């Protein structure tokens, strides 16, 4: 690639995607039904931010991968989670990370959280309307300007919706959503929110074959992330292990019956 200089009329501005399209860096979309997908990711707001928990399994006709990272830091204060096609999803994360950083370097200021959420809409729309490899992301972050945690979800056509309570994406959504609906309160602490989000993933993994639960044999546990004034923090494996072991022990005590005081 040569030095990408543009005159004032054709300048792509601080948008990396526009620049990449003009320079032919982005691959044209193709379609194929060979994709690893199915997932459950939840994001739950609490009094000082947002927590996110995601399973780790990539599934096609069989288990393709057991330790996929479905949540990534898009920048210091923003997390992006993916469901749908793994190939497209991972590419989507890469593009979002690069786009936010590119904007920051070009203009010497960061995009607002809402700006980041809106920027993704046309990308999702273009991907999902031109390809069978559908990708549905979930964006959560700490809004520096408004000093609050915020969650944005998308529909298949790229529509962006802000959620005040929680959001769920992936094939295990019905089970995770039910759990969150019953357990969500507006005054939750970080610990409450993490425990509830973890339980939602546990329930999703219990009933959805394409969502991976805690793997005590291989020591692989769902990813747990917090977004607060400190930015993006990923909880270490020991914490995730302890959280899921607790849920699992309670479930074992009740003989596998969900609900009641032993939930």
């Amino acid at each position: 690639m040569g030095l990408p200089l543009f005159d004032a009329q054709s300048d792509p501005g601080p948008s990396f995607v526009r620049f990449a399209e003009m320079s032919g860096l982005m691959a044209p979309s193709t379609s194929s039904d060979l994709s690893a997908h199915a997932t459950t990711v939840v994001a739950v707001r609490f009094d000082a931010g947002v927590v996110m928990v995601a399973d780790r399994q990539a599934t096609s006709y069989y288990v393709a991968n057991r330790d996929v990272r479905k949540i990534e830091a898009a920048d210091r204060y923003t997390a992006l989670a993916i469901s749908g096609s793994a190939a497209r999803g991972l590419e989507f994360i890469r593009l979002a990370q690069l786009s936010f950083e590119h904007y920051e370097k070009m203009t010497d200021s960061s995009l607002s959280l809402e700006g980041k959420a809106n920027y993704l809409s046309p990308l999702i729309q273009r991907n999902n309307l031109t390809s069978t490899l559908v990708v549905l992301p979930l964006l959560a972050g700490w809004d520096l300007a408004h000093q609050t945690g915020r969650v944005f979800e998308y529909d298949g056509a790229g529509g962006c919706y802000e959620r005040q309570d929680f959001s769920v994406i992936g094939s295990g959504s019905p089970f995770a959503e039910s759990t969150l609906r019953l357990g969500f309160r507006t005054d939750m602490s970080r610990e409450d929110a993490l425990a509830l989000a973890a339980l939602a993933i546990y329930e999703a993994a219990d009933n959805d074959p394409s969502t991976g639960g805690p793997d005590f044999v291989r020591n692989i546990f769902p990813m747990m992330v917090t977004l607060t004034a400190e930015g993006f923090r990923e909880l270490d494996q020991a914490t995730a292990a302890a959280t899921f072991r607790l849920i699992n022990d309670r479930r074992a005590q009740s003989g596998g019956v969900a609900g009641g005081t032993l939930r």
Partner: protein
Amino acid sequence: MSNYFYVAPEQLIKDRAEFAQKGIARGRSIIAAIHDVGVVMVAENPSASLYKISEIYDRIAFAGVGKYNEFDRLREAGIRWADGTGYTYSREDVDARALANFYAQHLGDMFTEGQKPLEVEILVAQLGNKFRPTKLYRIAYEGTISDEEDFAVLGGDAETIKKRFADLERGHLPLDQTLKNAVSALAGPDRHLPVGDLEVGVLEDRGDRRTFERLDDGQIARLLE
């Protein structure tokens, strides 16, 4: 009917060089120096929003003197090139030398073929790691690229400032000392530069992927104490 006058190529080059030098000499200078753990770039710049020193990539920074609109365009092209290359291949494959060569080619082309030469002088700095060395590439208005050993001075008064800085700097000193030397070399014996007129950018490893940091007035004042 138009008349074409013959101009000897030597004269043409000389005129163009003079034109570019004049434009560059109007602006204030920049010093970039390698310190003990990184690279520091210091510019005299009263504006707090029109920067001369910027981040290009994880370990690459840019500095420009001369006409703002011309070097800012080069800065943008550099960020696009770096982000595009890193996206196409890998972040590891983004190399300051390749970028400096592209800048040199472009400036060279503009000098010989453009309507007018660009009135800029730019610097591409790279913080080294185990794969690449720490480097300072200075690229002049006519496309001459020079690989500077320990420090580089850009701008009209470069030779004088270079001498002053060379007299002060002994090897790779800590950041605060290097900054003090750079500020006193930029100011000269008869002037004092207030913190508000300084723009300072640093490339240093702090455990993050991105190594560029723009120092604010408070940080600069503390280092100069």
